[in-house]
């Protein structure tokens, strides 16, 4: 009998202090306390839990070998303008990068030279490629075709840069086209572009936190024509000031001053004229409008009883006077809050809350744990919350949004994924469709009777061996809208190198000129001219989807050194009303005997069936070398 009681109280005993502190289950706790007083076995058990906590503290105590991170190192590592407290002697370190997700469990050993910025300058100077100011942080690329430049980065984390940079490239190859942090998906949207009167929309949400060692890249772009557009260049090794907006006109770039609070991980741009640009900074949900003279940050009203104003997690602009957005926030009294989706409409002057029915408003499924309010920061999309991934609208006001919900079991494993398709009909947002075992991550409406959704179906099978193993099959899907229903579209199969491919973006300038890009987990090792084997690009001509050949990028390996590998990946699309497609990505060159890693951002225009390499802007001198993004087509 007493043993039964011991067993009954055991779960509570393992958290008795917590239950008391939180004033939970007070009657049961009182009963457990009473039992405890007379039960030496449970007293011993309780002491054991206390000792376990102590053992944990001991087990995790920092050791003498734990490196110390100084602010100087930190700021140096992230590119902020701060002198290190001391210069460190060059050293050699070996970094092991494990990335099961990308490399099938392979380990990559990367040897990286670490030294001072001064040393880097000397090296650059020696090969005649230096444009780096003395003392300025080195960028993660070098002008073509230098291969000899050793990567030298000061600071603690810089020692990890080589490995992290490889991981970044591998992540890029894997289609993590948002910020390539190793932190996974949180919220927001991917880069996308929208040009005047076109409908180019973002797809999959992989916006995540900053990734320290990310090289310069195109973080967002929009083009009005083959000669006019906007490009956001971003260097994630820097702090929030390390992104730059350029206006592109007739082959020339003009840097445009940006708001002080401008801090992008990824940007969506809608350009309606050189003096009418909308920017959605996916990371923080900030929306800015540029009128040719200055910027206004858009504000979004808070719903009644909201803890804080909602910031959009997805948005789209259909015209300069019509836009749509969705965010979420918590409403209700503290202790009984619920998460709701908030839909917004921009009418040309103001963002207003758009009506939604109760199902569409629901941001989390019934039975989700009540969130604990925490006023000091935004709440990430997380477990048991419906994550909005994309929104798209026709000029006629037909608006759709995609999202999905992942439910986790008690062990934290994802037990189900459900796609959500929202539609605004008769002025009210509703859930139009719920799809089991599906993630929807991108949508682009190209007309009242045409539109596209990208996503994937996920099927899991449990295999019982000595331990249960769950195998998961992920199949990319494209859905097509015919004005009445969504149905699965026939798309060209990804080839072997594109296995595990996920879609990253959709762009279109008309219903019969639609593009979808995806990237795969595969890893290409190549020394000849090649075309980004890991990138999947398909085109819809109004009748069918077909593969599009990617631009041939000349490998940088003049000495045919087999230790050097070149990798190309593209991840950013923009369609201009002229019918041109713009494609951004990069070439990375790894190896060469000293753990070198160099990165060249790339921009191409596809016009009349031909790829044309377009020079990217030279980044400001604040960080040093210019962005030499040009790559001769092979």
């Amino acid at each position, binding site marked *: 009998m007493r043993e039964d009681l011991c067993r009954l109280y*055991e*779960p509570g005993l*393992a958290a008795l*202090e*917590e239950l008391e502190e*939180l004033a*939970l289950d007070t009657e049961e706790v009182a009963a457990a306390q009473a039992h405890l007083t007379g039960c030496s*076995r449970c007293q*011993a058990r309780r002491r*054991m839990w206390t*000792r*376990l906590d102590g*053992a*944990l*503290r001991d*087990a*995790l105590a*920092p050791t003498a070998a*734990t490196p110390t*991170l*100084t*602010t100087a190192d*930190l700021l140096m590592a992230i590119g902020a*303008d701060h002198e290190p407290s001391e210069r460190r002697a060059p050293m050699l370190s070996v970094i092991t990068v494990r*990335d099961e*997700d990308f490399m099938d469990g392979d380990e990559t050993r990367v040897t990286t030279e670490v030294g001072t910025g001064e040393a880097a300058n000397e090296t650059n100077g020696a090969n005649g490629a230096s444009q780096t100011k003395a003392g300025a942080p080195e960028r993660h690329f070098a002008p073509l075709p230098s291969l000899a430049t050793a990567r030298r980065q000061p600071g*603690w*984390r810089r020692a*990890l840069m080589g490995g992290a940079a490889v991981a970044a490239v591998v992540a890029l190859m894997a289609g993590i086209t948002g910020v390539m942090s*190793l*932190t*996974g998906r949180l919220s927001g949207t991917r880069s996308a572009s929208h040009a005047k009167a076109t409908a180019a929309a973002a797809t999959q949400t992989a916006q*995540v*936190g900053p990734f320290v060692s990310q090289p310069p890249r195109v973080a967002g772009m929009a083009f009005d024509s083959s000669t006019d557009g906007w490009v956001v260049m971003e260097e994630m090794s820097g702090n*929030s*000031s390390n992104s730059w907006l350029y206006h592109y006109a007739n082959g020339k770039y003009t840097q445009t*001053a940006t*708001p*002080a609070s401008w*801090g992008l991980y990824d940007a969506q741009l809608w350009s309606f004229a050189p003096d009418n640009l909308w920017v959605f900074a996916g990371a923080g949900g900030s929306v*800015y409008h540029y009128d040719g003279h*200055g910027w*206004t*940050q858009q*504000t979004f009203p808070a719903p009644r009883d909201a803890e804080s104003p909602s910031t959009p997690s997805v948005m789209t602009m259909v015209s300069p006077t019509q836009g749509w957005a969705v965010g979420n926030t918590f409403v209700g009294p503290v202790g009984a809050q619920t998460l709701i989706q908030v839909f917004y409409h921009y009418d040309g002057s103001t963002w207003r809350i758009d009506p939604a029915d109760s199902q569409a408003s629901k941001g989390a499924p019934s039975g989700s*744990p*009540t*969130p*604990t309010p*925490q006023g*000091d*920061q935004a*709440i*990430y999309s997380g477990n048991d919350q419906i994550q909005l991934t994309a929104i798209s609208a026709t000029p006629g006001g037909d608006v759709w949004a995609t999202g999905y919900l992942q439910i986790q079991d*008690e*062990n*934290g*494993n*994802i037990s189900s994924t459900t796609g959500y398709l929202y539609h605004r009909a008769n002025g009210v947002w509703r859930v139009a469709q719920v799809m089991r075992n599906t993630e929807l991550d991108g949508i682009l409406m190209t007309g009242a009777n045409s539109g596209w959704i990208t996503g994937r179906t996920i099927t899991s099978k449990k295999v019982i061996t000595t331990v*249960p193993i769950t195998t998961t099959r992920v199949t990319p899907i494209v859905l097509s809208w015919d004005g009445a229903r969504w149905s699965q579209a026939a798309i060209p199969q990804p080839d072997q190198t594109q296995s595990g491919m996920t879609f990253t973006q959709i762009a279109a300038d008309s219903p019969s000129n639609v593009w979808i890009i995806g990237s795969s987990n595969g890893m290409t090792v190549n020394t000849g001219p090649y075309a980004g084997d890991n990138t999947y690009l398909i085109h819809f001509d109004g009748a069918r989807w077909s593969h599009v050949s990617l631009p041939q990028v000349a490998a940088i390996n003049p000495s045919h050194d087999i230790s050097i590998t070149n990798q190309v990946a593209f991840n950013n699309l923009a369609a201009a009303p002229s019918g041109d497609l713009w494609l951004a990505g990069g070439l990375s060159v790894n190896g060469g005997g000293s753990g070198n890693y160099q990165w060249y951002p790339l921009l191409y225009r596809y016009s009349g069936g031909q790829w044309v390499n377009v020079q990217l802007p030279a980044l400001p001198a604040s960080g040093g070398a210019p962005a030499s993004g040009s790559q001769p087509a092979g």
Partner: protein
Amino acid sequence: MRERMPERGAGASAEAEEGEAMLSLAAFTATVERLQRPLSAFLRGMVGDGEQALDLTQDAFHDAWRATQRGDAPWTAAGGDDEARRRWLFHTAYWRAVSQLRRRKIIHWLPLERPWPAQGARDGQSGDGASEAERVDGAAAFEERVVEGEALRAALAKLAPEDAAALLLRAVEGFSAAEAAAIMRISPAAMAQRISRARRRLRAIYLAQNPPEGAAGGKE
């Protein structure tokens, strides 16, 4: 409804962006110095790898730096105190770790139906229904061997990251249960449940991985 934005021109320095409310570099530095070790210890416990933990630690501070640059609470001179920043950092670190673990698919599980050594299941029960005798057998050995940090860390790595985080925040980092719940954005009840589950599973996994000698024939 719209605010006119101050602008930052080309090549503007970080100083130019600093407003009155911006957290000073000295204050940021003090936070880095004070919290990096607890933060990396927490992350090491969660991800089970020191190097990854260091990466994530730096990422969390990078987030904090960005928040400082943006003037987000609690990373301002006026708003937020040290404790609020500590909670903020642990929350950020927690989400980063959880996300990374999920995406990298490196979460491994023992079959939870049988967390106890098979030889101990004399009465045919298993899991939480294991006999009291085997539990206490395990308990004695557990108490002796739990000091083996490496084995304990290995067991910790097999906990669900959410459970591990709950336990670490509470037991190692010394947050109150309410603070830990706020950091993890879960209800107090869920927090208590996770801590209880984490402690019991940790013990079970530890014993499964390090079977006490003579477990089957042990005495109370």
